[in-house]
């Protein structure tokens, strides 16, 4: 659908990216930080699909990058949740403020 201007889609993905950045800056809980990272990765996916659709319709590279980003996001979420569960077992909390044993 080329009726939607490309700038509008880019506006949406930029706004979503910085919503994710805001969440990453303000949240203290590790699961909600992971959720912010998912939002950021998704906004990048929107960008890749839109550029592939509007500017480089003769190639499929944007689609491949999107697929690889989705795969890497899945792997990252699995490892992050394993770490979170392990941290909860040892500290009874998943706040980033309370886990500072390796800081100094």
């Amino acid at each position, binding site marked *: 659908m080329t009726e939607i201007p490309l700038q509008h889609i880019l506006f949406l993905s930029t706004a979503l990216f910085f919503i994710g950045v805001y969440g990453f800056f303000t949240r203290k809980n590790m699961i909600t930080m992971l959720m912010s990272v998912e939002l950021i990765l998704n906004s990048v*996916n929107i960008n890749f699909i839109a550029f592939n659709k509007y500017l480089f319709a003769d190639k499929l590279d944007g689609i491949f990058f999107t697929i690889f980003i989705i795969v890497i996001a899945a792997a990252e979420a699995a490892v992050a949740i394993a770490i979170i569960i392990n941290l909860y077992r040892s500290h009874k909390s998943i706040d980033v403020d309370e886990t500072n044993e390796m800081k100094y």
Partner: protein
Amino acid sequence: MSITLVIYYLLAAMILVCGSLSVTSGKIFRAAVYLLGSLIGIAGLFFLLENEFIAAVQIVVYVGGIVVLIIFSIFLTHKSGEEMKMPSTQRKIAGFVAAFIGFFLAHFLIHHNEFVATNNPKIEQSVMNIGSQMLDTNKFGFVLPFEVVSMLLLAAMIGAIVIAIKVKPKE
């Protein structure tokens, strides 16, 4: 204003509202459900951009996989209905200012950049084309990243099991 544009604005509003509620909500389970709404909106946007394959992958992997995983880990680590500690006002303002400046700069660049579309003939973004180019070993094929990513997934799965496994104390 055509119907496509109206649907696009509705989807965009859904994505942005759900996304911002997801990063500001005080209850963690609600945040996860808002994240679900945002991801479904993004899948709808991919359908609107005529990318059915990516939209299906988005629903299967994100909505069916990652969000369910997040909700499971919420239930393993939180009492349900518990309010989270909210960030301090100073931190909120600092985060908002940083995000807003970044947004403003990126938006400025988008507005002042000419996007030139290619004139080459379009190719159809069908599953057949995607699959045959992804597993192509010739030039422009994506079989090497495909294999690397499969190794990465295997390593991540083994790593997740090793990290989350319960070690019994030795007697």
